[in-house]
């Protein structure tokens, strides 16, 4: 696309599709505001950009100038950032249009997008089910065909898990590949902006644009943007590891069937398949649920009602302002994690929890290095232990909810790139397979995904 009229028409069509998908509650930006902004952006966009005219929806925990940034929380209701995230600025510089802000679990804490102050997001194929989370709004909009791609964010699987449940492609880059500047922090050492797309190519080309160095983020690597690989004929030469810990005895039989079919196809594509072991995998979820809340408890301290966002009970004194604002502004899941995080960092508990979790995190990362050092290029696993579950089903049991991320948190803990792509359906619901790559070798991972995407029966029953 390089014709302004075409871009304008495309922006209008995207707005129409997004508005039409309103019943999903995936888009937080009101239709009128969205149409107006898309129209303006399409007129202002530079035709030479590689994403010229492409509508990309953005998760609401990524700062934008065009729209409010609420993180799905009441505590940031109406908050308009005076600056935009580096990833968003790069998107716009490439000619893409910011197609509104997508609903998410509050501050990206959740696996079902039920923990949003603005209501839950519906699964596009079954309104009684969840789209996954926390980037459920982005996943649902891509799955519904409203936008070709959307930005999400990951701390423990928040792009890949909803991608798996909604049947789209989700990529989480290596930690440090994409600037976090303007991504509202949850667990800073784990957070990365990721991309969802209808296809590997849509997701990958958006990722390529938003990747690369940024002097505003000290944890962003000084590297050139990701170069997109070409679509390979086969997977000849690839060694793909199958970590046995990701296929436990009690794995959902249908998920196992889907994965086994995928493994067969990988072999047929020419990849050498090898069983490997990542022995510390069972500790990943508990490790994650110490480190992420610890960082969150500190990252969310700034929401105190003093400088921005709504205020509650601010007239008595500053303590009342804090208590009132944070008590009323945060939802129950966020409050739970702040409490957990505060606890594990407290003196007397730090060594038993936070320090221990950091040690375990190092062991988990070492597991991956050991496997990659022995000639394995990529790992293949299920993305999620189940397809989309019913709304409300896991709300009363946080641990059951947390286990939705059992196969995804490891890549965040180890800082590795990973992607999910559809490998089939179970009773009509999509299920994803996961590729985990080596640090900063997203290109290899995407190359393999290109080959896989062509032959995988994404919509066939497993």
């Amino acid at each position, binding site marked *: 696309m390089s014709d302004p009229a075409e871009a304008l028409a495309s922006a209008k069509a995207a707005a129409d599709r997004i508005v039409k998908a309103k019943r999903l509650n995936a888009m937080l930006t009101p239709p009128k505001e969205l149409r107006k902004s898309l129209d303006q952006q399409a007129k202002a966009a530079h035709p030479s950009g590689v994403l010229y005219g492409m509508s990309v929806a953005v998760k609401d925990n990524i700062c934008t100038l065009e729209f409010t940034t609420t993180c799905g929380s009441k505590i940031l209701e109406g*908050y308009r950032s005076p600056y935009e995230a580096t990833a968003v600025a790069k998107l716009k510089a490439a000619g893409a249009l910011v197609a509104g802000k997508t609903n998410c679990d509050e501050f990206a804490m959740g696996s079902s997008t039920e923990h949003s102050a603005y209501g839950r997001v519906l699964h596009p194929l079954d309104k009684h089910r969840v789209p996954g989370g926390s980037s459920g709004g982005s996943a649902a909009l891509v799955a519904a065909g409203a936008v070709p791609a959307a930005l999400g964010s990951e701390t423990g699987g928040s792009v890949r898990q909803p991608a798996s449940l909604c049947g789209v492609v989700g990529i989480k880059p290596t930690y440090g590949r994409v600037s976090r500047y303007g991504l509202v922090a949850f667990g800073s050492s784990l957070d990365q902006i990721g991309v969802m797309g209808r296809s590997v190519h849509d997701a990958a080309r958006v990722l390529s644009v938003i990747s690369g160095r940024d002097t505003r983020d000290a944890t962003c690597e000084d590297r050139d943007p990701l170069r997109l690989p070409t679509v390979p004929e086969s997977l000849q030469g690839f060694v793909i590891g199958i970590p046995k810990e990701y296929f436990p005895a009690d794995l959902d039989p249908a998920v196992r069937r889907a994965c086994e079919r995928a493994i067969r196809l990988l072999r047929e594509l020419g990849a050498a398949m090898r069983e490997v072991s990542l022995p510390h995998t069972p500790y990943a979820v508990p490790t994650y649920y110490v480190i992420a809340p610890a960082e969150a408890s500190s990252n969310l301290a700034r929401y105190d009602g003093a400088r921005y966002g709504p205020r509650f009970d601010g007239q008595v004194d500053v303590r009342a302002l804090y208590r009132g604002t944070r008590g009323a502004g945060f939802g129950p899941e966020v409050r739970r994690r702040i409490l957990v995080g505060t606890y594990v960092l407290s003196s007397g508990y730090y060594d038993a929890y936070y320090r221990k979790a950091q040690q375990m995190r190092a062991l988990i990362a070492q597991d991956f290095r050991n496997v990659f050092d022995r000639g394995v290029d990529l790992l293949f696993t299920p993305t999620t232990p189940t397809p989309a579950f019913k709304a409300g089903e896991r709300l009363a049991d946080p641990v059951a909810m947390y286990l939705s991320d059992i196969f995804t948190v490891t890549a965040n803990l180890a800082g590795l790139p990973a992607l999910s792509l559809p490998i089939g359906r179970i009773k009509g619901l999509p299920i994803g397979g996961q590729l985990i790559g080596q640090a900063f070798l997203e290109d290899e991972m995407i190359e393999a995904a290109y080959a896989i995407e062509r032959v995988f029966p994404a919509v066939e029953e497993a």
Partner: protein
Amino acid sequence: MGGGNAWETVIGLETHVQLRTNSKMFCGCSAAFGAAPNTNVCPVCLGLPGALPVPNEQAIRLAVRAALALNCTVHTKSVFARKNYFYPDLPKGYQISQFDQPLATDGSLVFLSPDRGVVTVSIVRLHVEEDAGKSLHDRFPKQTAVDLNRCGVPLVEIVTGPDLRSPQEARAYLLTLKQVLEYTGVSDCDMEKGSLRVDANVSVRRVGETALGTKVEVKNINSFAYVEKALTVERDRQIALREAGGTVVQQTMLYDAKENAVRPQRSKEESHDYRYFPDPDLPPLVLSTELVAEQQATLPELPARKRDRFVAQYALSQQDASVLTASRAVADYYEAVVHAGADAKAAANWVMGEVLADAKAHDDQLRASAGALAQLIGLVRGGTLSHQAAKRVFGEVADRGGDPRNVAEALGLVQVADAGVLAGWVSDVLASQPQEVARYRSGETRLLQFFVGQVMKASRGKADPKLAQRVLEEKLTA
């Protein structure tokens, strides 16, 4: 309190020093003092959602410089940590500091104690952190205003061991620390502007005891003058308490300068658990060997060494050398005067006298150039100007500049060394003082200096005093 019952005071100081950088510690905002409230701010120092810190390299350089000047071991790897607490002038809800892996440890500073002579105080640690904003409680009635300009200004915290033994000694240490930090260009150490702030840990014990008493932290000490006062008040409070059979409770006290008293910090002002943990937004701070070497190489001569050198090189007393090396600017000025040809002793007297007095009256500016002062000293030595006249010329040169000789001539202050002209003044003086002349002639020869003074007065300072004396002697004995 005497003999075996005497109390010993034990003090350790934590000094926060603002680094002299243009921009803040983790963002590009100006670190300047005195701007309109909340104007030197950006998403990073305001702690807006999504903003991230990036360390200021110049601040790191200055911190390394301070550490080297204090003989610390500089660690090539240190870690930024978050210190978590809620306060309205702390927008992120945490301060970025350093905790268990500070930039530098194990240093020392030698200073002259008023009680014990030369004392070496241990520097336990030096770490880098960001300043908080300022809460203004007296600006609006019943409301607290917050100014975030200071938020994110780079600081180093310098922590001593419990090595100081009196409030006076604490003050002397602080002045020496200030001097070292000014010398090295690390900070302007202006307590009035808050660029140097002190918290103290104070305890008392019986002389001879080796275990430390329970310590009390004293905060809110806002000037050098208050350091001694605040610590004295707290020391006296603890001793009185102990003498009365009480026990000291570990707590934080705030010094109230107006009342010259300390009061306990309200418990809710106190933070019980800062929940320090490594800041995940900042990779460990790894210093290159080049950076450390560069700071080491460019470290100036420090005050103690300079003082010793001045004593040796310029034959000055310890006292004079101390005064001349108190600030680097003055020391450099003094040496420039000497290098421009002035006599070292005369230059010292001039700098300690006229120059420092003039600087004090003019914002610490050294207004007359070193070359001009050297020339002026030369004119006095050569007999062209009397000391009195030279002082007038100095003031003139300081105010308006110019060449001292020209100024002296323009003011008509050049000494008259013409015996004929002098003879006129001498005759006038002798004629107007017949009684003194008679006394002189009857043997009171010490009156000669009186006559010299009278001649100087009659000539309005222009007469060459040596020549005047000679002419007087001739006339009086004639």
